[in-house]
């Protein structure tokens, strides 16, 4: 069986699940941010695969992926700024210690 749409979708699903596990299980906030980037990349792979195999002439999936990349860049900048601001006040990036807004 030659490589087709399903292979890319399964690869994307595997990457998304790995990223989800990292987001839920890790305690270091920077690693959590890295895992969010993995999840966004997984979604981009499936968008580009749909664009390639379902509508090869329209490129709408690739344009959507460009917007996802832009939003991911903005999210990374703001997220890292928040992490560094919290690190300044708490001397830690451990999410278990980020309980400032916890009831």
């Amino acid at each position, binding site marked *: 069986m*030659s*490589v087709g*749409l*399903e*292979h*890319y*979708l*399964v*690869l994307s*699903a*595997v*990457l*998304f*699940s*790995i*990223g*989800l*596990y990292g987001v*839920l*299980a890790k*305690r*270091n906030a*920077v690693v959590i941010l*890295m*895992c969010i*980037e*993995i999840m966004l*990349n997984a979604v*981009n*792979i499936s968008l*580009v*695969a749909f*664009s*390639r*195999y*379902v509508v*090869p*002439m329209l*490129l709408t999936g*690739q*344009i959507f*992926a*460009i*917007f996802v*990349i*832009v*939003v991911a*860049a*903005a*999210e*990374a*900048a*703001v997220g*890292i*700024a928040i992490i*560094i601001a919290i*690190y300044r006040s708490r001397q*830690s990036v*451990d999410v*278990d210690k980020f309980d400032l807004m916890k009831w």
Partner: protein
Amino acid sequence: MFDIIFWILALVTVGAALAVVVLRDVFRAALSLVLLFLTIAVIYITLYADFLAVVQVLIYVGAISILIIVAIMLTREVWHGSPPGKLRIPALVVSLLLLGTMVFTVISTKWETSGEPPQQPTTAAIGMSLFGEGGFILPVEITAVLLLAAVLGAIVLIREK
């Protein structure tokens, strides 16, 4: 030939993603994240998305990974590394369940693929549909505002009091 390239890429990608999650050294995790971004750029090339591959290298490998590495250097931990938290087993169960559901759905769905050859090169076509008549010009403008807001927000958050 194409199949072999895809399988090698898939193996390296999944291995790099697992290394990001498993490695306790945060800096090594960031380096394997860079490897992941690069292999995803090559995956875009195998999908005939040449412009997107260049964008991936520029933004992810060039900008976001540098940002993450700088963040790691600025937040030197007392306990170096990233140990898993208390929710490790539930997180594993949830992500495996989600993976099983997604793989089952993908395999059991009959996808309507088009046999047309892919459009290439894609740069001119993407530019036309982003900025041309009846294209995505409004989302592009909104994205510009979003980027400006993100930059201002990051500066305000990180400024010394």
